[in-house]
């Protein structure tokens, strides 16, 4: 009976490992900025990314009639980090503007380095921006 339970435990461990290998966390950090009220909201959906990358600062302005946002990200680690980020834009009704034209760009952060990422709206109708940060390993 003991031998049987050992075998079952081994099988369960193997099954658990095989499932775990394919799992990559794709949730990340979201920074939502309302350019009309100036309010910013940070949502950290990944505990791992939260411990690696911090949002230091959010600034915004307007150029040639287009909203622009500057967000400073800082690495809390001493090693090199690779993350992807995307800045999407929304109109006054909360509809995302041309979602396919805004891509995930890669960002390499050296140990304890902070970098500012910038996004310009793709339409004069944009009033809200949303920065999404994810680990590069999530870009399958």
């Amino acid at each position, binding site marked *: 009976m003991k031998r049987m339970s050992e075998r079952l435990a081994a099988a369960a461990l193997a099954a658990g490992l095989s499932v775990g290998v394919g799992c990559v966390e794709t949730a990340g950090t979201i920074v939502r900025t309302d350019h009309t009220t100036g309010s910013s909201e940070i949502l950290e959906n990944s505990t791992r990314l939260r411990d690696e990358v911090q949002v230091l600062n959010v600034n915004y302005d307007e*150029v*040639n009639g287009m909203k622009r946002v500057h967000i400073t990200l800082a690495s809390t680690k001493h090693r090199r980090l690779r993350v*992807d980020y995307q800045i999407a834009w929304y109109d006054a009704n909360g509809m995302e503007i041309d979602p396919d034209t805004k891509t995930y760009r890669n960002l390499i952060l050296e140990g304890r380095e902070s970098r500012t990422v910038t996004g310009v709206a793709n339409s004069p109708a944009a009033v809200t921006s949303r920065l999404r940060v994810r680990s590069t390993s999530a870009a399958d």
Partner: protein
Amino acid sequence: MKTFVWMAMGVAGAALLTGCATSTPAVREVQLDRSPMTHKLEPQDVRRTVEKMAESLVSAPGVKEAVGGTRPVLDVEPLKNRTTQHVDMVSITDSLRMQLLRSGLFRFVDKSTSGTDIEFIDAQANLGLTDPKKAIKAGQQSAAQMYLTGALSEMKNQVGRTVDQYYKFSMILKDLRSGEIVWADEREIRKESTRPRVGF
């Protein structure tokens, strides 16, 4: 108990073998911005470049000054490919034109479709099918006031099993009347790939 274990193993074996019966490759849709697979230029590189160039052009202070509150007529020339790879440069300029068009800062003409314009105007004037009062007459099209052009260049170094590849997209916006360069920007991409020690 022993019989049950054997039965379970049999079912598991059958389930595994069923998966081997098909010979079609596994196909799935993936993200447009996936991680790089080769050191060559890939779709995500092009998408990021187009987005970066469009953002840079739209937010450049010199462009606002040159535009001066009007929406100038712009033509986008295909980028010159100075690399050894085949890259669809027309597709890149099409994407850039689309993004700039949506910004509302410019109006556009397309020199590459002028031949088709002539065919239409010629047909309307000469075939007798179109109401002569409604037929579009030649010589009324807008003239391009500015044009956008550029080039893609590369540098490649190989050391042992490692390939270091560098690409540079450079673009300029030129005012046709003054001949001045109103805006210029470039985007660099550097990739490294290492072949495994074993394998082909």
